[in-house]
């Protein structure tokens, strides 16, 4: 399930983006250290493979509904965690841009949810230990099912956390968890079977591929795993710390930091530079000086602080009428601007064509 911009607050989006970018930088460094440049075109083509395979639908047995491939675990098994994370991140980036899957702020969350858990939890901590002693197809199936299950559950739980911390949805924690986790249990079973199936297919038809890719990776599992666990812990602590700091430092929620950045007309002591300039400009040009520029939310807040019981019946219809009137006028203004630009552009194109045509004639 893809996270969406509309459900995110800037603080949560930015924090998870920071974690994702950190992981991308870490993986890039690791790939540079460990691998030869043969991996670079290989990763590109395999990314395209995942991208194409995701678009092929299949029917899920018994339900009749159709599913498609996620691919994080397949990548981790075939390429190793670092390269897999980079490939997953690139696939999701292209999907976010071309299919608008979730949006660009949510892209950080999506890379984290769908890339980090299969690559750095499911693969090294679950798949590898099970498969390490001999790869039978049964073992591969068991390992994939279990690893994919854990990866997807963690990813789904992250979606819940990210949404709740952003505070845009009213869903209570318990309901949300009960909604997300079972759905992803079903998705996980299907994905696990596919992962195992594809790995087994490659193993029977081209066994040397699995080995040769594993060779390029040149992994020393003991130290690797420790490092990954430590890195995960560090990132978790930083992320958790940052999020809780944002969440707790202001009762109003996570918009606090952005409110700070943008400043508000009510906080003159914070206004410097361009804010100051804009304010004086606004004061000088105010055509209705007796009307406050206070935002609606502040008025609302004041009212709710007056007392919960009186809060809502007191809302003046005047405010909402002017709000609706203003919205309609703003919308028509925007549409007018759009058409205006279109018309001007068309005229320009027309006249430039004419002049070029005239030039052409002059030359001939």
């Amino acid at each position: 399930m893809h996270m969406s911009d509309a459900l995110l607050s800037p603080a949560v989006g930015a924090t998870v983006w920071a974690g994702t970018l950190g992981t991308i930088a870490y993986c890039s460094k690791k790939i540079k250290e460990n691998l030869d440049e043969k991996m670079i075109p290989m990763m590109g083509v395999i990314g395209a493979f995942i991208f194409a395979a995701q678009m092929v639908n299949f029917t899920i047995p018994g339900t009749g509904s159709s599913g498609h491939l996620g691919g994080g675990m397949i990548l981790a098994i075939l390429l190793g965690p670092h390269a897999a994370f980079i490939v997953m991140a690139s696939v999701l980036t292209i999907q976010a841009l071309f299919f608008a899957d979730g949006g660009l702020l949510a892209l950080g969350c999506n890379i984290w949810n769908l890339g980090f858990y299969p690559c750095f939890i499911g693969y090294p901590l679950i798949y590898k230990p099970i498969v390490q002693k001999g790869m039978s197809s049964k073992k591969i199936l068991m390992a994939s099912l279990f690893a994919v299950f854990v990866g997807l559950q963690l990813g789904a739980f992250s979606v819940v956390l990210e949404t709740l911390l952003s505070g845009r949805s009213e869903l209570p924690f318990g309901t949300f968890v009960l909604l997300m986790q079972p759905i992803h249990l079903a998705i996980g079973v299907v994905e696990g079977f596919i992962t195992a199936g594809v790995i087994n297919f490659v193993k029977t038809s081209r066994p040397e591929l699995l080995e040769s890719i594993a060779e390029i990776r040149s992994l020393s599992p003991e130290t690797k795993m420790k490092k990954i666990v430590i890195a995960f812990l560090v990132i978790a602590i930083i992320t958790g710390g940052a999020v809780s700091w944002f969440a707790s430092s202001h009762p109003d929620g996570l918009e606090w930091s952005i409110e700070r950045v943008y400043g508000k007309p009510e906080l003159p002591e914070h206004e410097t530079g361009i804010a100051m300039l804009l304010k004086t400009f606004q004061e000088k040009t105010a055509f209705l000086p007796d009307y406050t520029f206070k935002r609606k939310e502040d008025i609302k807040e004041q009212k709710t602080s007056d007392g919960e019981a009186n809060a809502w019946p007191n809302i003046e219809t005047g405010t909402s009428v002017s709000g609706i009137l203003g919205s309609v006028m703003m919308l028509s203004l925007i549409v007018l601007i759009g058409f205006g630009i279109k018309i001007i552009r068309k005229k320009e194109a027309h006249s430039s064509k004419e002049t070029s045509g005239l030039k052409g004639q002059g030359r001939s």
Partner: protein
Amino acid sequence: MNFDKEYFNLGVLDTLSYKNTLVHRLDPRTKVITTFAFIVTVVSFPKYEIAGLIPFLLFPVVIFALGDIPVWFILKKVLVVSVFAVFIGILNPLFDTHIKYHFFTLPVSGGWVSFFSILLKYFLTMCSALLLISTTSFPGICHALRKLGVPEIFISQLLFLYRYIFVLMEETLRMVRAKDLRSFGKKGQGISIFINLVGTLFVKTIERAERIYHAMLSRGFTGTIHFVLREGFGKKDFVFISATGITLYMFRAYDIVGLIGRLAERMFN
């Protein structure tokens, strides 16, 4: 997902991004930065905000018009994709039932207000992502990201991936079509066929990757991709960034809609 259609859409967006208009000629960095600033500003509005978000529609409208982007093509994509936000948002009215506004005489609960706020934010952010890619070529975006400090390996990965998507999609398209022609009714739609198809595709992919790698080596590939950008960061970029920045600030910090509404009321009275 309809395979042929998605593939076709990918090609349309790619073609759009190579148009030659005022917006297309801006430096990719300018567009990446302003798009992110726009998204963060839109998303920063609190849960119950609707009026404050409306002025932001100005940005997509201006880009549609200036960039000469087909409106219906993008809108269709925005309305069809990712139902997750809508799905989670529609539950808000169930949980948040206290009355927030009176729409003339009709009481409106807080849940509906926050749901419409989510819908508006969804529309604005989706539009901005699709407008970014339809006004900036993908290699341009990669170049901008590289200049903004994203690791080299990730950039190479994005560029390689983008190049081979079109190749592999054609290959997959042929395989899926061949499978469809050989299967009737509900046969051939199952999971085991899918696994075999994807497995074969993978083996083919690896063989292709090896051929590509050898071809690149013999042409002197050293591990990084070089490319030349048509235009640099110029006066127009500076103007665009400052204009966007100031407008975003104004729309975020002042109640433009309320102001216009009160002004209009005054005129009518």
